[in-house]
């Protein structure tokens, strides 16, 4: 037997450096770190709120600090990227029949963006009015 197939090893920890497609994927994946940190921070806020007005004030002061604002700025960016990457692929996971065909993907994506915009707007308005 003269066979000797050559196996090209995939670098286990750096494979995603090989092309832009993989980098975009990894960017999408790490959005979860920021979501998790934000939610953890929020949970701490809830604990502070439970502990009374004084603790809550220190918490508020903390959130207003420059590092916290910078973190939230970055987290906001990643959260938006998460939303975009999530909505853009929704037609793949959900196929809604319509006549002999399916509802076109752009309508499904569009609807998601619409709801996203609506929810955000309502929240902002409520905040302003509250």
């Amino acid at each position, binding site marked *: 037997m003269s066979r000797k197939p050559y196996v090209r090893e995939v670098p*286990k*920890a*750096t494979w*995603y450096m090989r092309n832009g497609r993989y980098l975009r994927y*990894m960017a999408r*994946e*790490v*959005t*979860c*770190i920021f*979501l*998790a940190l*934000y*939610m*953890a921070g*929020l*949970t701490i*806020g*809830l*604990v502070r*709120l*439970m502990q*009374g*007005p004084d603790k*809550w*004030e220190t918490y*508020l002061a903390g*959130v*207003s600090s420059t590092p*916290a*604002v910078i*973190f*939230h*700025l970055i*987290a*906001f960016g990643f*959260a*938006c990227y*998460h*939303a975009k990457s*999530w*909505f853009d692929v929704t037609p793949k996971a959900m196929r809604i029949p319509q006549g002999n065909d399916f509802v076109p993907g752009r309508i499904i994506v569009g609807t*998601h963006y619409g*709801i*996203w915009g609506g*929810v*955000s707007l309502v*929240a*902002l308005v409520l*905040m*302003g009015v*509250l």
Partner: protein
Amino acid sequence: MAKSNKPIVWGLFAAGGTISAFVAPVMILITGLLVPLGVFGEDAMSYERMTAFLSHWIVKIGLLGIVILTLWHAAHRLRITAHDFGIRNDSTIAMGVYGFAGLFSVIALFAVLAI
């Protein structure tokens, strides 16, 4: 060839991914940027307003849903991402990330119910 048990966590992952996609950006925007920068005025998130806001059970359930599902979403994704970064002891990672999500879920639950 055993069937995988991933469906449990995957269900939470997908739900959390969807919910957080809709609400996380605007939540971060409001609570992390606009309010601290004073856009809505000094006492937009005053103790009174927040406790009043959170006294409503719908708000409690909603907020808990968002926080817990997003945490599970993030935990599950992080587990996969760790693998993608070349960290291969999946069970340790899984324990870590799900543990983190579980811990904070319980804390959030406790805090919200107590408010």
